[in-house]
């Protein structure tokens, strides 16, 4: 069943790009596809487009359902739809699967035209910068010169920030949610453990497991279980599971606590549908993103350079969540400080929430009121 304010039944589309794309690493993708979805209508002067950037495991399927009987809608469906905070009566919303993904955009599981085999280990490492470049190409393809807004949580927020740094004239608003200007050592350490779980799985085969007809499920499953621990707060886990047992203590290593059941379920589900090579690359993109690096670690200077170059400057909404320890409020405040140092238009909300990093996907009323109010104030041209 579809709710009243759903974007309804949606279908993904594919944009093919036959021009070679030189990546930040220097590697060149000879051609590539980006799979995307859109909701709402692009207006006459093409001023109402909003790009949603996904995080580690997200996809282009942001809202709506593919069939009426789909169990779940797109991953940010609670935000996007007619009269929802990101109102599709006003905005033309674009969801895109990032390069290196495993949901239709060119990635490690795609066929390498040079070998007619899956790319596997040969697929280059892609970065946040590369994603944003490819997203501008998608905007070009859709005939959109300037986005009304780029919205992203977590790794998606890094892409929103990167848009304003690399293409300041192409984006009017950046909504950077539960994000950070780079990862801390601890945050990268989680990624390294996740990658080691995958790489040391005997079925990984150096990344070329496709040829062997296997997938490194055990590694991917452990990587995801670890991730889930870091996306929840201690309190949220306590409230959700506490020390609840499924049955009596049995003195085994089987699933005995509810928490174990949850983690194993999430791990199994993910390992069954996600590509391990994509997971490796997404975590690497997170690790590498550090726009302040060429400026001696000074994000204010990184922003200042853009300010000098561009006539127009994107306005910012930065949001963090009090219980998010993987992308803590302190990290969001670093972004805010750099914006303030550059006298940029910015508002910052620190939302009281119990859910940890996952809070950015939850329909908390105050959080959604923030996004609704901010998006309402964005001026767009007349509907077509």
């Amino acid at each position, binding site marked *: 069943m579809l709710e009243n304010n759903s974007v309804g039944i949606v279908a993904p589309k594919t944009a093919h790009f036959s021009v070679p794309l030189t990546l930040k690493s220097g590697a060149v993708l000879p051609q590539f596809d980006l799979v995307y979805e859109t909701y709402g209508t692009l207006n006459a002067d093409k001023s109402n487009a909003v790009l949603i950037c996904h995080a580690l495991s997200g996809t282009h399927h942001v809202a709506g359902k593919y069939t009426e009987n789909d169990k779940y809608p797109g991953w940010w469906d609670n935000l996007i739809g007619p009269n929802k905070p990101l109102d599709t009566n006003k905005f033309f919303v674009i969801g895109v699967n990032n390069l290196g993904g495993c949901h239709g955009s060119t990635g490690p599981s795609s066929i390498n035209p040079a070998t007619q085999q899956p790319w596997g280990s040969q697929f280059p490492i892609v970065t946040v910068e590369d994603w944003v470049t490819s997203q501008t190409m998608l905007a070009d393809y859709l005939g959109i010169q300037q986005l009304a807004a780029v919205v992203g949580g977590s790794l998606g927020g890094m892409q929103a920030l990167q848009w304003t740094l690399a293409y300041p004239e192409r984006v009017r608003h950046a909504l950077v949610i539960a994000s950070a200007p780079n990862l801390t050592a601890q945050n990268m350490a989680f990624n390294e453990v996740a990658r080691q779980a995958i790489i040391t799985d005997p079925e990984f085969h150096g990344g070329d497991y496709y040829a062997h007809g296997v997938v490194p499920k055990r590694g991917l499953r452990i990587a995801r279980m670890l991730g889930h621990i870091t996306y929840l707060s201690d309190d949220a886990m306590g409230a959700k599971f506490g020390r609840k047992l499924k049955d009596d203590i049995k003195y085994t290593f089987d699933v005995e606590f509810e928490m174990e059941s949850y983690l194993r379920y999430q791990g199994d589900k993910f390992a069954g549908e996600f590509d391990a090579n994509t997971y490796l690359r997404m975590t690497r993109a997170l690790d590498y993103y550090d726009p302040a690096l060429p400026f001696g670690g000074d994000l204010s200077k990184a922003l200042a350079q853009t300010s000098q170059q561009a006539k127009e400057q994107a306005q910012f909404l930065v949001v963090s969540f009090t219980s998010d320890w993987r992308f803590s409020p302190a990290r969001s*405040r670093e972004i805010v400080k750099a914006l303030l140092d550059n006298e940029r238009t910015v508002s910052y909300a*620190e939302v009281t929430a119990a859910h940890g990093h996952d809070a950015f996907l939850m329909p908390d009323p105050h959080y959604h009121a923030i996004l609704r109010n901010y998006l309402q104030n964005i001026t767009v041209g007349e509907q077509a």
Partner: protein
Amino acid sequence: MSQNIAQFRHDFAIIAGWLPFGAKVLDLGCGDGALLQYLKDAMEVRGYGVEKDDTNWLACLSKGVNVIQMDLESGLSGFEDQSFDTVILSQTLQAVHNTEGIVREMLRVGREVIVTFPNFGYWRSRMQISTGNMPVSKALPYQWYDTPNVHLCTINDFDQFCVNCNIQVKERLVLTDNKPVTFMPNLMGSLAMYRLKAATRP
């Protein structure tokens, strides 16, 4: 912590008069953003508000006022030295715990500081005390048990505070019912307004 929006107009105008046109302004405890919106319209200030309350924060956002959600008590570490023309603390001083610390932070961040507060030395407050009750008035609308105000002071107290902390008072204005008071201001004035600068050390 904005109290009595209706009474504000005149002090808004006085604050506007103390700012250079197009000033860069930081309003601490900015409430629903009414002052910043007024200053934006009247003086084309480039302003940021700081507010911790969710409802007030949202009201600022709806008005299109830049607003940073944080607790003043933790200081202004997100703001560089002398990065604002003026830092304003409008009718919030009395609700602040770390009073001296915050005034010092304001003087660090702003080239000038404006502080306004309800004068506890106002004769109506004194009357109520003399009858044996904590004052409740338009300017101080709370009961003693539910008030956010923890550091009420008189004009004399604040003058002494500035002396003790080596703060230069550039200008002081006292209002009652939106009218300036010059005769016995600590007794006759309900709202105190100060324009401050860090005093240069001898």
